[in-house]
């Protein structure tokens, strides 16, 4: 999952689930009486944000739960207009926060009109390399190099010696491979092409890394649901989707070989292990490449995954609004909010990355030049 766009039917289901959850929670709260009074603090604050569609299901549920359980005076309006739109909105300072799947780079940050921008990792997801070949079992072995050769158009048939060598006990059908990729610009593609560039030099020199690249071969689907639809409908197809799309659609997906030579299926645990290998992830060094770390984690880590990021101005002009915002995001990036992310098949942020997020939030300053994140908030949510 990554950054991609989680729109369409799955998102709709999730939003519906959020609505249903709200009713469930509303009843006991009303029964207890005066809950809203207990859970409100400070003056009413209305926050606005814009950006990544990948974040939207998590934000919808998380903001709702924060309002219900932590502070009913804080309401958030989030427009999921895509990461590019989110970056433009925060650059022109028309929203309180932006959300983007690939962090804003130096050139983007230079366009910001209201000072320095702080970027905070907010959620995490893994990508499943799915395939639709009825005669093949789930969980075939695949290396990054061979995956790149398929996406380069060098391997075009399922009955290829490279695939047979990785799966000696499996009999492959003589069937053409249909490569499926994202047609729209997306962080999912960024993480995927970033991985292929790391493992295959031909890919890195001929195609490169990007939210949109010049795909050598294949068919483009719009959004994760578009790729999932093409994979589901096309015998012989291979495609990368956010993990929950593979789970919901009952796709078969590969066990990828990680740097330690282990075959790992994408799961919430294996993606979290990979992220935990890179505790020092930052907005300038954000790729979660599988490059070492403690043996136990490294052996269990799944290699294709990525974060999504918040973009917030460092110097805030409205202390009330900004205090509420950092409190909200401290909660969102720690166990309080992340448990709702997990319920939606995002991978909970590893402890080290929660600490990174907290450190970034502490850089956000009020009009008086002092950090806005209170010790109380850190003590309350920041475990």
């Amino acid at each position, binding site marked *: 999952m990554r950054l991609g766009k989680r729109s369409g039917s799955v998102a709709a289901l999730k939003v519906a689930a959020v609505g249903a959850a709200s009713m469930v929670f509303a009843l006991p709260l009303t029964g207890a009486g005066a809950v809203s009074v207990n859970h409100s603090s400070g003056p009413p604050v209305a926050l606005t944000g814009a950006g990544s569609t990948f974040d939207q299901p998590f934000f919808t549920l998380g903001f709702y739960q924060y309002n219900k359980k932590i502070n009913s005076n804080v309401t958030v309006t989030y427009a999921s207009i895509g990461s590019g739109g989110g970056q433009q909105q925060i650059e022109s300072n028309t929203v309180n926060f932006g959300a983007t799947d690939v962090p804003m780079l130096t050139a983007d940050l230079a366009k910001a009109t209201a000072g320095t921008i702080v970027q905070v990792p907010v959620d995490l997801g893994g990508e499943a390399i799915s395939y639709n070949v009825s005669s093949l079992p789930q969980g075939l072995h695949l290396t990054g190099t061979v995956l790149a050769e398929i996406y380069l158009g060098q391997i075009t048939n399922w009955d290829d010696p490279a695939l047979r060598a990785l799966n000696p006990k499996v009999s492959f059908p003589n069937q053409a491979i249909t490569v499926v990729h994202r047609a*729209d610009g997306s962080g999912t593609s960024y993480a995927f092409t970033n991985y292929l560039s790391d493992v295959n030099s031909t890919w890195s020199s001929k195609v490169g890394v990007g939210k949109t*690249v010049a795909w050598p071969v294949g*068919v483009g689907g719009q959004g994760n649901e578009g790729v999932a639809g093409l994979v589901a*409908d096309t015998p012989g197809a291979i495609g990368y989707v956010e993990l929950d799309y593979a789970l919901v659609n009952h796709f078969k997906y590969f066990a990828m070989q990680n740097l330690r030579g282990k075959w790992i299926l994408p799961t919430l645990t294996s993606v979290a292990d990979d992220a935990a290998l890179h505790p020092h992830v930052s907005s300038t060094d954000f790729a979660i490449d599988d490059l070492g770390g403690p043996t136990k984690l490294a052996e269990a880590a799944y290699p294709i995954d990525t974060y999504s990021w918040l973009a917030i101005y460092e110097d805030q002009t409205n202390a009330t609004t900004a205090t509420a915002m950092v409190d909200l995001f401290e909660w969102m990036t720690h166990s309080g909010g992340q448990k709702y992310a997990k319920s939606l098949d995002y991978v909970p942020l590893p402890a080290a990355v929660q600490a990174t997020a907290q450190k970034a939030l502490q850089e956000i300053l009020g009009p008086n030049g002092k950090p806005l994140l209170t010790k109380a908030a850190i003590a309350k949510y920041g475990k």
Partner: protein
Amino acid sequence: MTVGIRNPGTAGQPRRRPAVPNGLYRAGLSVAALVFVALLVAFVVDLVVQARPAFAHFGFSFITGTQWNPVTAHYGALPFIVGTLETTVIAMVLAIPIGLGAALSLSHLLPSRTRAVIGTAVEMLAAIPSVVYGLWGLLVLAPWARTVIEPAVAFVFGHRGPGGGSEIGVGLLLAGLILFVMVLPTMVAISRDVLAAVPTEQIEGALALGATKGQVLSRVVIPHARAGILGAITLATGRALGETMAVTMVIGNTPAITHSLFGTTATMASIIANQFTEATEPFHLASLIAIAVLLLVVAALVNVAARMLVRSVGRSVSAIAVA
């Protein structure tokens, strides 16, 4: 049909209130018409200004270039121009004869009760949102195209030329078929109305002279309605050129020119829809807006071509009449 209101208030009806002075009347209505011109100018100016970096940097090669690579910032729009024209041609080649046939039977051949039922069905087709057409194309038509249409086409043409490429369902042919279904209601509804407006006297006159039903339709009804029919074709073509959502969902989105009916490609509208939200590089954005300018130009050219066609057809028909 157009009705000219040149001189309101001079007809012989009784009048209670003083008439609005003609000058004022004309001025008020002209302002309303000028809003369109102003909007069009504002559109074009804004698009051209924002697209300038792309045109300035790539020059004419933006139109002739076949590479679209956001990683290296090389942008050429030819695959999308060709893709747009290819899908539109497929759609119109099917829509013109079928739409015209349907319009003729709805206006002159079918019993009136059947006309009402089919007419309603046509209007309902026009009301279906394009995303629904796209979903239907992707989930229903694509598997059918893969297992039935494409093998059939490949059987006729062989696996080369228009029948080449792999049979995966989505692609040029499917996009053209979806567009055909989408423009058909426009084609049928407008041509039906202009065909029905042909004066009964002329039809009866032809019948009295011993013309068969087919002769009446081809020599009296269609020539009389030709301007309206060409208007219908122009409108339908315009819709086919600019349709975005449904095409994006079924065309395969490969930024390359295809010579095969089964090949995947992209159109000007689909590349904009796909890449606009995540285009953060300035050149990328300018190039997408430049494609919007080109789409506007292509649509305008098609419109002008249709007008010239109307005029030349008008001339040839009157020439026949004189002869």
